């Protein structure tokens, strides 16, 4: 049978034009999610690993513009904000104060919300049948081997060692996001202290890198529907439904935190933007950020939407760049709230009494371990909790096994929480640019 090349061309072009349409968040719920679930139920578990590998390869592709985007966005924004030629000291203090206050408020909000929901829902208080399901799942998996070749401990590998930059180019090529951020902040400060004629070539280069990175992200994001189909169907094919049911309270807490964060972010958006700024915006952009993060499982994918929405509203570009990139990458509020819930889950599971002092400790450790997930993505963020569990002297290996078992589902609301709260921080901390241009329709940016 001869296949006409024009037919192949037509099929390819129709797929290429169809994929961007599938990227719209509502299509995630109406088409991608149901299709993936059905596919996951149909495929044999043996083929799920191949599907998962394909999905992870595409995730790697989607993540590739992240580092240059972070590097350029942070460097440009810090250089602009701290430059004595473009901004005065009062502006810097105003932005810095609002950013820090809003960031701390968001962390406090995320931890408190997660704490209240956990105290209400009591994740970790399990029925005998749920304990049996969990026990069956853990057989052979959590055994401790003494004398075998030990794997690298992740428990103590956090924060300080990962934040100090060594060589910004080496850090960038090694994917050390936190080091890239801290290096970019220092480099941005250095640029801000130099004369504009010395730094303008570099600034324009960084600006080009940033624009190209955003454009590249937009292109590779077309693969997001395929990524989701691969990952969700692979997860459905292998996930232990018994475990999901056993951990239902925990799952509900994480989803409720995401939804509550969406509600609060919507309120903040309404409260901290003027009517004139919202002219031409028909859909609340917080909803779009939420759905985009939820549907891709990555808060970073919401960065272009967040940036273009706020700059489109006339907000100061540097402030938006700085607040959006730093809150998306460093604060990791989805992880902060998730870790608070997970710590309370572990404490309940092992019958550790909840005292006022312990509540404060839970909030503190939830925030510290959540923030220490900066630079990590997806399932790799979960083991950060082990430090907190060691502090509370709760056995962390079985908890990690359980959390990792249901993480293919929970990584989605975690990303959505990070996305919407980062939007809230950016809205609160950024200000109207002096020379406001006519706002383009931000929805067209997605």
């Amino acid at each position, binding site marked *: 049978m001869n296949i006409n090349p024009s037919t192949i061309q037509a099929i390819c072009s129709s797929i290429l034009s169809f994929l961007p349409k599938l990227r719209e968040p509502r299509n995630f719920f109406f088409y991608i999610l149901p299709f993936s679930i059905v596919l996951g139920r149909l495929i044999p578990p043996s083929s799920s690993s191949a599907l998962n590998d394909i999905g992870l390869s595409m995730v790697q592709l989607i993540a590739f513009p992240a580092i240059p985007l972070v590097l350029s966005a942070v460097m440009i924004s810090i250089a602009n904000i701290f430059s004595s030629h473009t901004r005065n000291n009062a502006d810097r203090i105003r932005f810095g104060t609002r950013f820090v206050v809003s960031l701390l408020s968001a962390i406090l909000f995320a931890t408190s919300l997660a704490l209240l929901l956990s105290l209400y829902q009591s994740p970790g208080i399990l029925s005998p049948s749920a304990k049996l399901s969990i*026990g069956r799942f853990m057989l052979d998996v959590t055994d401790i081997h003494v004398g075998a070749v030990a794997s690298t401990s992740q428990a103590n590998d956090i924060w300080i060692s990962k934040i100090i930059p060594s060589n910004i180019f080496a850090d960038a090529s090694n994917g050390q996001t936190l080091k890239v951020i801290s290096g970019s902040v220092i480099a941005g400060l250095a640029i801000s202290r130099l004369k504009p004629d010395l730094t303008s070539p570099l600034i324009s280069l960084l600006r080009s890198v940033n624009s190209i990175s955003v454009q590249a992200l937009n292109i590779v994001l077309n693969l997001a529907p395929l990524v989701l189909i691969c990952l969700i169907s692979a997860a459905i094919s292998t996930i232990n439904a018994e475990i999901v049911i056993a951990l239902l309270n925990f799952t509900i807490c994480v989803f409720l935190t995401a939804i509550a964060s969406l509600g609060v972010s919507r309120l903040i958006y309404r409260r901290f933007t003027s009517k004139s700024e919202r002219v031409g915006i028909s859909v609340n952009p917080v909803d779009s950020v939420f759905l985009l993060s939820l549907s891709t499982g990555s808060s970073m994918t919401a960065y272009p939407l967040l940036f273009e929405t706020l700059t489109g509203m006339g907000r100061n570009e540097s402030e938006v760049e700085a607040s959006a990139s730093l809150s998306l990458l460093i604060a990791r509020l989805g992880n902060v709230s998730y870790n608070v819930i997970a710590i309370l889950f572990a404490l309940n599971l092992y019958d550790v009494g909840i005292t006022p002092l312990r509540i404060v400790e839970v909030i503190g450790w939830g925030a510290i371990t959540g923030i220490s997930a900066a630079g990590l993505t997806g399932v790799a963020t979960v083991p950060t909790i082990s430090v907190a569990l060691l502090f509370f002297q709760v056995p962390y290996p079985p908890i990690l096994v359980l959390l990792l078992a249901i993480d293919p589902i929970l990584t989605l609301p975690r990303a959505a929480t990070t996305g919407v709260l980062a939007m809230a921080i950016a809205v609160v901390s950024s200000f109207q640019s002096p020379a406001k241009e006519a706002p383009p329709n931000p929805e067209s940016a997605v």
Partner: protein
Amino acid sequence: MFKPFLRSLVAFAFVSLMLLSPLQVNAVNNFVESIQRRGYLKVGLPPYNTPPAYYIDPESKELTGYDVEIAKTLASKLKVDIEFDRSSTSFNNLVERVGLGDFDLGIGKLGLTYTRLFDAFPIQYLSFRHAFLANRGFISSLKVDPDDPSFGEILKNSNIRIGSIKNSTWETEARVNFPNAEFVGFDNWTAAKEALFANDSIVDAIYRDATEIKPIVYSKPDLSLEYVPILFDELIDRKSIYFSQEGRLGLEDFIDMTLQREWGGIKNDIAILDEFQSYYLAS
């Protein structure tokens, strides 16, 4: 001068051969022949039930298990009947009695210790890792990541309270391998398990080989939340069949060949857990 010396040397060598060689051959034959004359193999078994190694089957009320089958195979290859003796008071007592010649051999998941080497002569047939079933709370109190390379040393030098059967190889091993631990001896394995699971437990872990520890969580998976099997990959329990000096001399080659051909060589705990999966895994 040289010829008489050579003649004397050849004569001495001939007489030596005549005297020594038949003695060696007669020693082997004597032991096997004594069993065959008696008409049955006398096998000492511990006074416990340790399924699936050796136990009274609840339905048939007969002695069964893989250790029993090995002994029966040996008897059939010797073309004699078999008689099991379970009157020993402990594992160590059984090994002592084998050494004194009360039985032709002693079998029943008997581990190897210095004390037992003083009393009798072992031939290894199983290789099981030492294992704990430990309270996760105690493990967390050590404040070290179980994946950390230092975990093993910290555990071995901790003040852990270890429970197992008293006067067993595990009491000896606990004192050797865990110098700062407190050993709590129990009359039997069931009592040790009950002590671990009690509300105010007097032990932090129970100690035996992997084929005894793993089935506990297999039969009751919800225990996995509170208790964790710890497998010591470098501490190996060489389960052996014990003989008297004469028995070892007479039966060593015979046992080696039978174990290789009929049993499949020295088996480890993973092979045993796999082979007797239907027994170990909860229905």
